[in-house]
């Protein structure tokens, strides 16, 4: 009843191939975007930006990246946090070595550097797959974190071994550094998420995305119909790492400001991103956002209910959070291995017919 495609006729190929073929979806999408760009920045405060919106947007980028690799190309990676660290340190080195470089150029370049590193660590995927590959990417995770800890060049010989972001401005407004306003942080992330989301969506609809999916579904068959596995897999690793690197750069420069590599980019974050992909839905752009939102919001919510509402000690809430997270993952895998994206699709199907059963 609410969700109708009747009367939505297409008269040109262009109209037929647009991103949201159904008018209802299209309108909703633009309403959401109008809210995100036009309304939220005026109401956002430090708490909401730092606890919810900025981490959500940054992890959404990382989840998109991992979803391109794992969901679309079928290559499992447990090294996401390591690649985020590459992005973060690349942006740090670029910002300190070339102070006059535009912030967005820095972000793009750090994505590019991460893509190179990711491709190098993706090379084993040409020979192995499944969780053998997952373990191989763990090597990347541990090696990269160790490298950034041990080689002083990466953190400019700072005494603490930490890196902290220098202040950068754009149009006279600080966009990194401690004086950055909550709304600026939010808007910087939002713009990048918007662009990257658009690119990801269209990549997966095009030739390259289809070659990934062919590899994912059956690599032999894909090779026979002319997909080059080497190109498909390495491009998936490169583009996925590009996204994750950008997420890492933003995580460091916009969100945290100062980073200690083992803490911010530890193995737990790799798992967190993987969980976001699974819970959101493997192979779904919408799911990447849903998964990231879910796993960012849930701890905040739990904390507010348990610590704020019931007055429990916060370590107890942290343990419960672990339990709930683990249980949710198992429940999702049992009930709906395709995640929130599939649930949403099922709901849409139901809404189309509502209130009639058939």
């Amino acid at each position: 009843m609410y969700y109708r495609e009747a009367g939505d006729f297409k008269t040109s190929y262009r109209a037929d191939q647009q991103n949201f073929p159904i008018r209802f979806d299209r309108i909703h999408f633009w309403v959401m975007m109008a809210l995100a760009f036009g309304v939220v920045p005026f109401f956002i405060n430090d708490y909401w930006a730092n606890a919810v919106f900025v981490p959500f947007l940054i992890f959404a980028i990382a989840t998109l990246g991992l979803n391109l690799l794992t969901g679309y190309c079928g290559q499992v990676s447990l090294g996401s946090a390591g690649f985020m660290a590459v992005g973060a340190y690349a942006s740090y080195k670029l910002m300190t070595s070339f102070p006059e470089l535009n912030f967005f150029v820095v972000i793009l370049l750090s994505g590019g550097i991460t893509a190179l590193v990711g491709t190098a660590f993706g090379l084993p995927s040409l020979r192995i797959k499944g969780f053998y590959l997952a373990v191989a990417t763990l090597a990347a995770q541990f090696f990269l974190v160790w490298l950034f800890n041990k080689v002083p060049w990466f953190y400019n010989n700072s005494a603490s071994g930490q890196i902290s972001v220098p202040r950068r401005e754009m149009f006279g407004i600080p966009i990194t550094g401690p004086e950055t306003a909550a709304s600026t942080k939010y808007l910087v992330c939002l713009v990048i998420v918007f662009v990257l989301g658009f690119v990801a969506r269209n990549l997966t609809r095009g030739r390259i995305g289809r070659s990934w999916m062919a590899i994912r579904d059956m690599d032999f068959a894909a090779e026979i119909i002319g997909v080059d596995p080497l190109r498909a897999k390495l491009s998936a690793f490169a583009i996925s790492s590009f996204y994750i690197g950008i997420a890492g750069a933003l995580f460091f420069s916009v969100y945290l400001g100062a980073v200690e590599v083992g803490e911010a980019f530890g193995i737990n974050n790799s798992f967190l991103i993987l969980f976001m992909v699974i819970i959101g839905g493997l192979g779904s752009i919408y799911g990447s956002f849903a998964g990231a939102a879910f796993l960012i919001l849930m701890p905040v919510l739990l904390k507010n209910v348990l610590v704020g509402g019931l007055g429990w000690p916060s370590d107890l809430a942290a343990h419960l959070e672990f339990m709930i997270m683990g249980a949710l993952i198992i429940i999702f895998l049992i009930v709906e291995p395709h995640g929130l994206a599939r649930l949403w699709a099922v709901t849409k199907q139901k809404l189309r017919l509502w209130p009639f059963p058939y």
Partner: protein
Amino acid sequence: MSPDFLYAVEVLLNGLMAGVMYSLVALGFVLIFKASGVFNYAQGVMALFAALTLVGIMNGQVPFSHLINAVFGTSVHEFGWHVPALGAIALTAVVMVIFAFLVEKLILKYLIGQEPIILFMATIGLAYFMEGFGDLMWGADIKALDVGLPKGGSIWIEENTAWLAAEGSRFFGFFIDKLDVSATLVAVVLVIALTLFSQYTATGRALRAVADDHQAALSVGISLRAIWVITWSIAGFVALVAGIMWGSKSGVQFSLAFIALKALPVLMLGGFTSIPGAIVGGLIIGMGEKLFEFFVGPLIGGATENWFAYVLALIFLVFRPQGLFGERIIERV
């Protein structure tokens, strides 16, 4: 012999002992992987949970006391008794069997026939759950575990190896922890017991049948689900042994869960389906990372133990993807 060479030998010996510890964890992985095709990421957390439970029972802690106190405003902490080590170990074993039963009942039953990677992720979820659950049940503070195993460097070995170097050189015999020696003995006993069990008992044969072919095993009347409970219980015992060893060595704490990650490269080296492989792989990794740290570590900044095992496994994968002893079942591209 020159002291430098002897130091290298000492590092090698200690590496071998550390390798035994890795092997203990890897064993649990192999058992479950063979029987159910599940790559059980939660093995490390199982060891942590078993060790926590053991300490909790030994000290007479009230389970969930933290939670109970928070909800009801009471302040209960301990029952006030102490259970002897052996009794506590037996009780913990019972807990692990119950745990195995619940895992089968609540998780595995619903995931039969799913892709291995889905099962793998389910065990990651299980690991997270157990981490939270263990801390909630017994508290998250670091606990000392003492089940009466000998500890500290062995004076006997030191005194009896001191003659190896020339008089006056700075070498005073090999330093070897007694705990490592007992861990090695326990590992040997465990492997022999497991081998005998799987070769000479009916249940053991059923386990091997399931490992060979699920469907064929089902068709001759072996209950798959009973076998899975048994395998997970055995893996639980192995986790308990590993938990005791690691807990006695470095205290029962959260970092225990990460030994699972160390066991992964051991498995890649030894092969996922081979019990001897797990042992040999553990020894190679333990030895390799200690020697690498000893010779190369000082040149590149140290702390190479964090990644050496993975990089070694990575290089190994390129040349022999099925591991040293594994079956040729790995899917190649």
